[in-house]
């Protein structure tokens, strides 16, 4: 039975499941590194998913849908940026408010646009990037089947997430932007006194996190599920926040942590297929990713220290 569970398909699924988490988690990393907590990732992802579905349905072009999802994410993030940077609101309150807003807004728009709650019509999906020939039989074929299954069977945003993780990791430690970003979240006044604009830097970081979480929503709808369902993000934004912490506020770490959570999710789905053979209620498998989140956050990782000034509004002078 183990051979039935551990298949290329399981790992491919893990990579797929990890993608929206990773995109949002990297967004969260960038945002928190600038000193702004973004608890609204969940809501942004959900809004992105809805915008992606609605625009794809309206235009018939899933790529336009992806763009719409990113822009919708940026729009919600802009509200968060304005509230927490310019108005110096409590960032957790602002984020929580936006999460509730996103849930209500997408539900409301469902009814207005499609006349019913629940799930939209299927949208045109983006296909996997590579179409592969059927591998031959034998050992070579088995190896090929694994390589293809795990690495080459994916849609574009899955690969994009890996590229984004690598680029963001490099940029955070090697570029002017990255150095300034890290300074902003640790000691904004120090950045200010050497002439770096705290507001501008934080705005850019929050908008970037909005774009990434929006892209995560697009991946969910246009590459994975194929339709929008109310509250379909189902806590992924919060798991992404956990992945950001587990990844110690680094893009690469966030990606790897997301991979772990994605694997838990994939395993959970796989195990449900063997419901008959394993005498454990399926609810326990469903819990797996969340239990893992709790365990990870509760201390497997030891004491995680985030940016020193995260969550604190900056006031000049």
């Amino acid at each position: 039975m183990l051979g039935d569970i551990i298949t290329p398909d399981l790992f491919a699924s893990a990579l797929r499941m990890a993608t929206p988490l990773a995109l949002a988690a990297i967004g969260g990393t960038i945002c928190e590194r600038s000193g702004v907590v973004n608890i609204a990732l969940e809501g942004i992802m959900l809004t992105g998913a809805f915008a992606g579905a609605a625009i794809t349905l309206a235009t018939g072009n899933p790529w336009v849908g992806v763009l719409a999802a990113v822009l919708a994410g940026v729009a919600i993030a802009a509200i968060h940026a304005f509230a927490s940077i310019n108005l110096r609101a409590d960032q957790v309150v602002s984020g929580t408010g936006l999460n509730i807003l996103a849930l209500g807004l997408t539900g409301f728009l469902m009814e207005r646009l499609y006349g019913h709650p629940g799930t939209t019509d299927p949208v045109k999906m983006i296909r996997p990037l590579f179409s592969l020939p059927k591998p031959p039989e034998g050992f070579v074929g088995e190896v090929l089947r694994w390589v293809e299954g795990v690495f080459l069977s994916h849609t574009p945003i899955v690969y994009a997430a890996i590229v984004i993780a690598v680029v963001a990791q490099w940029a955070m430690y090697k570029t002017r932007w990255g150095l300034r970003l890290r300074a902003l979240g640790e000691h904004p006044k120090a950045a200010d006194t050497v002439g770096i604009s705290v507001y501008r830097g934080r705005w850019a970081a929050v908008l970037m996190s909005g774009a990434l979480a929006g892209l995560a929503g697009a991946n969910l709808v246009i590459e994975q599920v194929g339709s929008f369902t109310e509250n379909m993000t189902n806590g992924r934004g919060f798991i992404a926040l956990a992945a950001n912490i587990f990844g110690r506020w680094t893009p690469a770490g966030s990606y790897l942590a997301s991979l772990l959570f994605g694997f838990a999710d994939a395993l959970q789905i796989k195990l449900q297929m063997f419901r008959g053979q394993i005498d454990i209620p399926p609810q326990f498998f469903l819990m797996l990713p969340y239990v893992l989140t709790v365990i990870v956050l509760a201390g497997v990782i030891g004491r995680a220290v985030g940016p020193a000034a995260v969550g604190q509004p900056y006031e000049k002078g």
Partner: protein
Amino acid sequence: MPVLELRGITKIFPGVVANDDVSLTLDSGEIVALLGENGAGKTTLMNVVYGLLSADGGEVLVDGKPARIKSPRDAIDHGIGMVHQHFMLVEPLTVTENIVLGREPGRWGVIDFAAARERVRALSEQYGLKVDPDAKIQDLSVGMQQRVEILKALYQGARVLILDEPTAVLTPQEVHELFSVVRSLVEEGLSVVFITHKLEEVIAVADRIVVMRDGRVVGETKPAETDMVGLARMMVGRDVVLRIEKGASVCGEPVLEVEDLHVLDDRRLEAVRGVTFTVCGGEVVAIAGVDGNGQRELVEAIVGLRRPQGGAIRTKGRDVTHATAREAIEAKISHIPEDRHRRGLVLDFTIAENLVLGDHREEPYAKRGVMRPSVIAEMARERISAYDVRTPSERVLASALSGGNQQKVVVAREIGRGPELLVAAQPTRGLDVGAIEFVHRQIIAQRDAGKAVLLVSFELEEVMALADRILVIYEGRIVREFAAGEADDQTLGYYMTGGGGSKLEPAAAAAAETGGER
């Protein structure tokens, strides 16, 4: 022509005129000390020059030309650099990263770290400011961090360097080094504004002294033309007693007995290694030592904030070795902690709330678990006037007070409680002469009332001014005891830095401690 000139700078905060028509010049290659009490407006003035605050009136001239300085960027572009009292360094970043931040070498947004490191190394050699370019700030000592700050200003092309209270956080040794750094900077052609409220520093380092009080410049002088007493009078506006007069101590019964005490620090290393001493009613016993030799752990053990590993602590014969902080208060031990912001006060509480902390559950301030605001307010008003806390009302938040007034609130609470033993750790840290005088008077008043006082201080001046007996602590052991007036600061400094006891074997240390007992 002066490199920097301020003409009629006025800065008004709601309700306060922080700078009132202030004019000042700084010549090339000159060290000007800006002297004044906390709250006199020195830092405000320099923040205006550095573009962190915008003035309500007046102008700044650089090299004789009016300069519009709206932000730190503008100030840097005019060749003005500032080392802030609270360092503007990003702790997890490296020395190099901090120095180049905001002006990173490289192209296309990619930082050329090799070039950056080279620039830092070159600067640090040119000015004799040795520092490891790859070390993280959080691993450096405060003195080293300050060097990084100075290097940062130099990297940005500063020709005028403003140092805001640069010695507040330094050890005497580091202060010495800083002075020679400042002199070499001036030799290299820089001009320096040195903000401070410490009189001896002004005399030691300045070419010219400008004194500020209540937002105005009240005088200007040169070190050769004045002395500490004259400067203190100018700064405070009245005669200040720099050293409190006190009579001989009348020693009563032992109040605090510490016996072979062993205490661990936060890293679980032994910080206090078998300390034995006694403090009697009616005397001030000072623990003199360089920071980090076990003073903090010793104090925390006595006041119930840290569990000793071994030994005993008794107050008036009662065993308080394992007392909690609450039991320590009940045993009439009061504690003026060394860090008033972290331990002395709850900054977001009002003065009244801060004053009642620790007694808040006791009658008459509370009844059946419910606090009685009117009783507390009345007590607060009494103590505010008795301890001369300058505040419009007892409902003001502690965070709104100046450092000196905050410390008065702490002193008012701890002494107002009526302790038998007062443990005062660094009770005048960061205070100006007027406030120091006040706190010193309170401590001597306690002693004269027959109470026991244990003073911990890194400042020899303070130790010698207040103590009846001095215990020198080094690496967690009491290495010498002196009676008041028996040792000068050189002798104390010698023992404080391990001169007499660094190689002490446990037996010899024990002998030295027994010698220190009464």
